[in-house]
């Protein structure tokens, strides 16, 4: 089992979600995060004084899936989340040791 953790631009979430649903992914978790990579922050103005906002709003999407689906899922995320501009985000893939369904107690791939 693998976990895909990706950081994407917030307005891309719907597109990525729909594309993953087409692949029959069973579910996902989304969090609102802030961060930066090479995309610089910006300055804002308040009553004549400037301040810097370094951390830009992003969305983190986490999906756990069977090893066999990872390649397709990554391809899908890349094509739906890309804009071509700096700040599009990153995808990380890690291994999952165990997965348990709370309602039934199932374990392993069938619990995903």
């Amino acid at each position: 089992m693998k976990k895909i953790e990706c950081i994407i631009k917030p307005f891309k979430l719907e597109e990525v979600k729909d594309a993953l649903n087409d692949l029959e992914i069973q579910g996902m978790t989304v969090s609102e995060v802030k961060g930066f990579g090479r995309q610089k922050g910006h300055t804002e103005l308040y009553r004549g004084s400037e301040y810097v906002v370094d951390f830009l709003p992003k969305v983190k999407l986490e999906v756990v899936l069977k090893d066999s689906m990872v390649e397709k899922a990554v391809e899908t995320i890349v094509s739906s989340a890309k804009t071509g501009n700096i700040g599009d985000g990153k995808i990380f893939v890690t291994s999952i040791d165990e997965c348990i369904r709370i309602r039934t107690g199932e374990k392993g791939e069938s619990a995903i």
Partner: protein
Amino acid sequence: MMTFILLNGATAFAAEKAPLSLEANAKAIEAVQKNADFVWTLMAAFLVFFMQAGFAMVEAGFTRAKNAINILLKNLMDFGMGAIAFWAVGFGLMFGATKTGFFGTSDFFLASLNGGADPWGLAFWMFQVVFAAVAATIVSGAVAERTKFVAYLFYSIIITAFIYPVFGSWAWGSLYHGGGWLEALGFIDFAGSTVVHSVGGWAALAGAIVLGPRLGKYGKGGESIPIPGHNMPLAALGVFILWFGWYGFNPGSTTTASMDIAGIAVNTTLAGAAGAVMAMITAWFKFKKPDVGMSLNGALAGLVGITAGCANVTPLSSIIIGLIAGFIVVIAVVFIDRIRIDDPVGAIAVHGVCGAWGTFAAGLFNIGGTSLTILGVQLAGIGAAFAWSFTVSLIMFKLIDMTIGMRVSPEEEMQGLDFGEHGTNAYPDFQITTIRT
């Protein structure tokens, strides 16, 4: 006249017993006018009361969420404690009979009005108490986010019981039982650019100076670091409410139901509008973008600016007064910040500085013509207000600081006054708590 008497005669016949005479008619007309005076003055008082909501929203919007409850409670207490302090002591000092022309010595605890001997006195008190509360609440914005709640309560009582009414007696005492040296000179301040706004503004200045700036407001090199307010929609709502209330503040100061109200309302409107526009343009030039906070301050500046002269200047003059106020307020906000006096909402610039401008403008743009004497008297009033309000407030704040302390601890300031002073949170839903439902 004959028709009137005939018509009246007809109704008198129908009513059976009404006496038919010019005298009786005149009395009846007088009574209607008097009742209308009451209705108008009280409606205006209720409008000005609503300005408390305006101040609360402006101040909450321009400050951080972690201090929202503190701001709201300070505003509530400005009225709560202020109304009682004004009933007990303030009204008497301001409008009681006087020998000196410097303060009143009767009408404490509204003693003369208990038992309803003078219903007008009650209406007049109602109108005046809401003005006193406005002066008090002006300060709460300037001292926001770092003042001990108890210290603020002390201040609030002292300003409504003493600082505000004493100066008020100099300019407005004769409106009831008193009389003041300043009004005897011919001082023009119809609705209170100086009496209310400058008195509040200079007290705010004293408070901000004694308190010192918020933590993190000024950097190592003295540069101003923005601490953005947490809710611009609330701030804007507050300004609109204040503007609405101003239609009680200015036209209401006639305390009579007369046609004068129209012109005063027009002047008020035009000055506020001009102030907003000019502040927006000024800030646009200075900072390259139109700024909502400065524009909101500009509207208030225009309204403060016209408050003194709303009954003795033309509509065109009102626009000019508003334009200049809108310009001045932006410059003043920046200047006050530059000399490292931290005023989170711009109260000193809006109420103190523009109050002084409005008072001077009332002499300058006087419909009957201006003169050096007129301007001199206006300046005397402006100076006296500053000397009295700033000095007494400074002493008061210093004394409070030396006894119970004005300022919260740095740890408390960082965590937020809502938790430190009130043990609670304005937006508890945004936390994770142990509540299980």
